[in-house]
C-alpha cells in the first residue's frame, strides 16, 4: 500500500471554508482560542481586570508586608488598644493585649494565600486524578470512584476536625491546608469527570487510541489540554473556597495553633469584646481583607469565563 496513486491533483487553494465567521485569512496559523485573541479580550474585560488588580495588590501586601512590619505579630508590646497611628509603626493600632495589628494583618494575609494555594492545590490535584480516571475509564471504576466521592462529600468535616484537633496538640498551617484539601475535592472531581466524559466520546480520542497512545498519554495530552481553561477556573474557585473555609475554621478556634491568621484575628477580637470596646481596627481589616480576596477571585473567575468562552463575549 505504499505506491502513490496516479490521479489528477485536486488543487485546494489557500482559502478558508466559506462562512467561517471571524477567521482571519492570513498565512500565520493560529490556535482556535489564539493567545493573542484571548489577551485582547482579557485586557478589555472589566471583571477580570478588577479582580486581578485587587488580588494582586493583596498578594503584594502579603509578600512585602511582613518585611516592613516593625514588630513581630505575636509580641506583646507596651501599648494596649492603641488606635491606628504613625507612631512606632503601629499603622493599624494594637490589640487589647498590645500586639501589632498591622503585623498580624499582613502575616494573616500571607497565611491566607498559603492555605489557599496549598489547600486549593491539593483539592485540585485529588479532584483531577479522581475525575479523569472516573471519566475516562467509565464502568466499574467510575462506579467505585463515585462511591468514594460521595462518602467524602458527606463526611461531617467539623466533627472530624474536632477529633483531629483533640489529638494534635500543635497544628500548623500545613495541617490545616492538607485537611481542607482532602475534604473539599469532591465537587472538583465531579466537574472534571463530567467534562472528561464528554471529551472521551469525541473521535480524536478514538483516533489517539488507534495511534498507539496509552491512557495516561491520552488524558494528559488530549483531554486535559482541552479543558485547560476550565481547570484553571476550577483552581481559582478552590483557592477562594479554601481561604473561606480556613477563615471559618480559624474563627471557631480550630485554626493553626502556632501562628496568626485573618480568621484568628477576627476570633480573638470578638472574644476580647472588640466590638463593644470600639476597637474597629482589630476586626475590620481582617474581615474586609477576606471579603476582598475571595470576592475578587470570584469576580475574576466570572470574567475569565467570558474571556475563554467565545459565545459569552460581547462584540
Amino acid at each position, binding site marked *: 500500500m505504499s505506491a*502513490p*496513486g496516479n490521479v489528477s491533483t485536486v488543487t*485546494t487553494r489557500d482559502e478558508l471554508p466559506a462562512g467561517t465567521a471571524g*477567521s482571519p485569512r492570513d498565512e500565520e*496559523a*493560529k490556535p482556535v482560542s489564539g493567545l493573542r485573541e484571548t489577551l485582547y479580550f482579557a485586557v478589555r474585560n472589566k471583571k477580570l481586570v478588577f479582580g486581578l488588580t485587587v488580588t494582586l495588590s493583596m498578594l503584594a501586601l502579603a509578600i512585602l508586608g511582613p518585611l516592613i512590619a516593625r514588630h513581630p505579630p505575636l509580641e506583646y508590646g507596651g501599648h494596649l488598644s492603641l488606635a491606628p497611628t504613625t507612631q512606632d509603626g503601629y499603622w493599624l493600632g494594637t490589640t487589647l493585649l498590645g500586639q501589632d495589628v498591622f503585623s498580624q494583618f499582613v502575616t494573616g494575609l500571607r497565611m491566607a494565600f498559603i492555605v489557599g494555594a496549598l489547600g486549593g492545590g491539593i483539592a485540585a490535584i485529588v479532584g483531577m486524578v479522581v475525575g479523569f480516571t472516573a471519566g475516562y475509564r467509565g464502568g466499574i471504576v467510575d462506579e467505585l470512584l463515585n462511591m468514594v466521592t460521595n462518602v467524602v462529600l458527606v463526611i461531617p468535616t467539623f466533627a472530624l476536625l474536632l477529633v483531629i484537633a483533640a489529638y494534635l496538640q500543635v497544628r500548623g498551617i500545613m495541617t490545616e491546608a492538607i485537611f481542607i484539601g482532602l475534604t473539599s475535592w469532591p465537587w472538583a472531581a465531579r466537574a472534571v469527570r463530567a467534562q472528561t466524559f464528554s471529551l472521551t466520546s469525541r*473521535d480524536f480520542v*478514538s483516533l489517539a487510541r488507534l*495511534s498507539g497512545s496509552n491512557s495516561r498519554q491520552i488524558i494528559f495530552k488530549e483531554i486535559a489540554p482541552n479543558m485547560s481553561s476550565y481547570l484553571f477556573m476550577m483552581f481559582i474557585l478552590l483557592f477562594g473556597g479554601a481561604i473561606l473555609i480556613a477563615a471559618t475554621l480559624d474563627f471557631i478556634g480550630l485554626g493553626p495553633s502556632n501562628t496568626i491568621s485573618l480568621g484568628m484575628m477576627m476570633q480573638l477580637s470578638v472574644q476580647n469584646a472588640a466590638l463593644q470596646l470600639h476597637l474597629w481596627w482589630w476586626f475590620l481589616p481582617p474581615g474586609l481583607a477576606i471579603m476582598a480576596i475571595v470576592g475578587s477571585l470570584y469576580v475574576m473567575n466570572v470574567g475569565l469565563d467570558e474571556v475563554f468562552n467565545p459565545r459569552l463575549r460581547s462584540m
Partner: protein
Amino acid sequence: MSETSALVELDRCTKVYRVGSFGSKRLTAVRDVAFDLRAGEVVSLIGESGSGKSTIGRMILRLSPITSGAIRFKGEDISGLRGASLKEYHRHAQGVFQDPFSSYNPIYKADRVFKLVRDAYFPSVGSGEWTRKVAGVLDAVSLDPSQVLHRYPHQLSGGQLQRLLVARALLLDIDFLVADEIISMLDASTRIDVLNLLGELKEQGLGILFITHDLSLGNYISDRTVILRRGEIVEMGATQKVFGDPRHAYTRMLLASVPQLRHKWEEHGNGRAAEAGAIVDGEGSVLVEVERDHLVRTEGAS
C-alpha cells in the same frame, strides 16, 4: 471466489451493552453478525440509525470489546488483543470516522495526527525520511503539503481533513480500513472525490469496510453489501445482486425510500409503514442463500 482467503472475518459477533445502575439491564446492539471481507474489496455496511453498523466498525478496530463471537484478521482472532499485540494490529487496520471536526483535537495543528503515528510506530525514523514519507501519502490522497501542513483544523475544509485522515492511515502501510460514514458530513461536490480516492486505494489492494446509511454511495463504491437492521443482517451479497434483485422486504423498503434524481417516489404511505415496524423477523430467522453470493434472512423475504 474463495481462492483468496478472507482478510477480515466476523464469526457470530454479538455486542451486548449493560445499561442502568451497575449494569442491571441489557441492550443488544449487534446480534450474531457474520461476514467476511477480502483484500482489494469494498464491503458496504448499510443500515439506519440503531442498526449497529458503527458498533461493528468499532469492534473490528478493537475500540469496543466484543461480547461473544470472534473477529479474525488474516486468520488470527483479534478480539482478545491487548497492549503490544494490539498496537501491532493497528499497523494493519485503521479507521476514519464521520465528523472531520471531531476527529481532530482543536488545540493542536492538524498534522499532529501524523506525529502521533510517528512517535508510536516510527520512533527511529530520521526527519528527512519522515518528510518524504509524509509527502508520499499526501500525494496518494491528492493533497498539496503546503496547503495542509502546519495548519489548524479549523483552517482546513472537511474534505481536506478527511483526506488527511486517510493519509494518516496510509502511513502505516495498512491492509484494511474502516470508513465509518466518512463523507456524510462533506459537501456533495467533495464527497465524490473522497469516494473516488477510496476506489483507487481499493484497486491497489486495500480492503475497505464502508459504513454508511446512504444506499447510493454504497452502490457506487462497493463490491459487496451487507444490509443491517437492529443489529442483525437481513440481506447480504454482491452489490449488484442485493440492489438489483432485493429479496428482503426491508431492503426493498430502503431502496424505495431513497430519493432519486430522475424518478419520483412510487407510492405514498410507504415510509410510515416502515416506521411502524411492520417488517418483523421472527426469533428463529436465519440467513438463507437464495443464489450464489446472495443471502437473505427468512421470514420477511419472498
